[in-house]
């Protein structure tokens, strides 16, 4: 899931979700990055409106996220 988290960090900071940026974030976290997964993720997200996907999630009974 770390690849997806990395993509979302980039999304939050308005950086492009591309192979270089993803690899950079993941390597900074000490991940032994697999190029193929990065490629596949970039391809998979190509046609996805990340903002919309997040809003759908937020709108739904938010992930069991009850109080602390």
């Amino acid at each position, binding site marked *: 899931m770390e690849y997806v988290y990395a993509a979302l960090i980039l999304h939050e900071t308005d950086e492009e979700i591309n192979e270089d940026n993803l690899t950079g974030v993941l390597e900074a976290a000490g991940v032994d990055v697999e190029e193929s997964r990065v490629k*596949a993720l970039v391809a998979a997200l190509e046609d996805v409106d990340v903002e919309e996907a997040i809003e759908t999630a937020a709108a739904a009974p938010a992930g069991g*996220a009850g109080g*602390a």
Partner: protein
Amino acid sequence: MSAEAERKTETIPEWKREEIDDLAAFLGRYESVGVVDITGIPSRQLQDMRRELHGTAALRVSRNTLMERALAEVDEGLEALVEFVEGQVGLIGTNDNPFGLYQQLEESKTPAPISAGEVAPNDVVIPEGDTGVDPGPFVGELQTVGANARIEGGSIKVVEDSTVLSAGEEVSADLANVLGELGIEPKEVGLDLRGVVSEGVSFSPEELDIDVEEYIADLEAASSAARNLSINAEYPTARTVPSMLAKAAGEAKSVGLSAAVESPDLADDLVSKADAQMRSLAAAIDDEEALPEELRG
């Protein structure tokens, strides 16, 4: 020589012969023939019932010995009905299905009061509730016949459903009084089917009393069983293959999400899942300073 055979050979008066032939002709006109108990039904009410049955069934009453003769003479297994010819009975015939006839007869039964000395056809129950009778000796009468009654709030109340007589027991004068006072009519008066022969097959009243709801429940259970077997044994049918496809697709999605497979088909869900996890983690954090404004409770 048996008694029965003896009777057959005896000389029969002409009018009896004619009546038997007439009864036999009556029996021959119907696919289903039954014996009904008409005990205690006044002749005028019997006329009303005949009228109500018109078009679906016909009722014929005669002397028992003659009815027995006719039943025995007509073939088609009607002799099985002879044993039911006892007391006040009649013959009933229909070309509709006998299950429908049974139901119609049951529905046409009306409640009636029971008198002292009569035998209860079923359990007699005095139901729980306010009798509406003012406090007085009646509470004692209730208690005498076995009802759990007491005075409460200015009237006599029966505290719980009380069975005051079991089926087959004789009604006492006291009980008949109490039931009359309460307006309880424990008898069901009407044509009571004792047995039917339909196209050679005998049916008892219990067999005729079909519960359609039960059959529907059986149909549902049977089709569930088949669905379960088909899917669990992985034998696809047109009815179950959509479920199997959905199940397989669900499995693939589950595997894909739990492995975070970078597939375009899963991208939406993965983003949603990550977001949900982030929010869930944020919700577990007590210190709002540690969270961006959007995530503060």
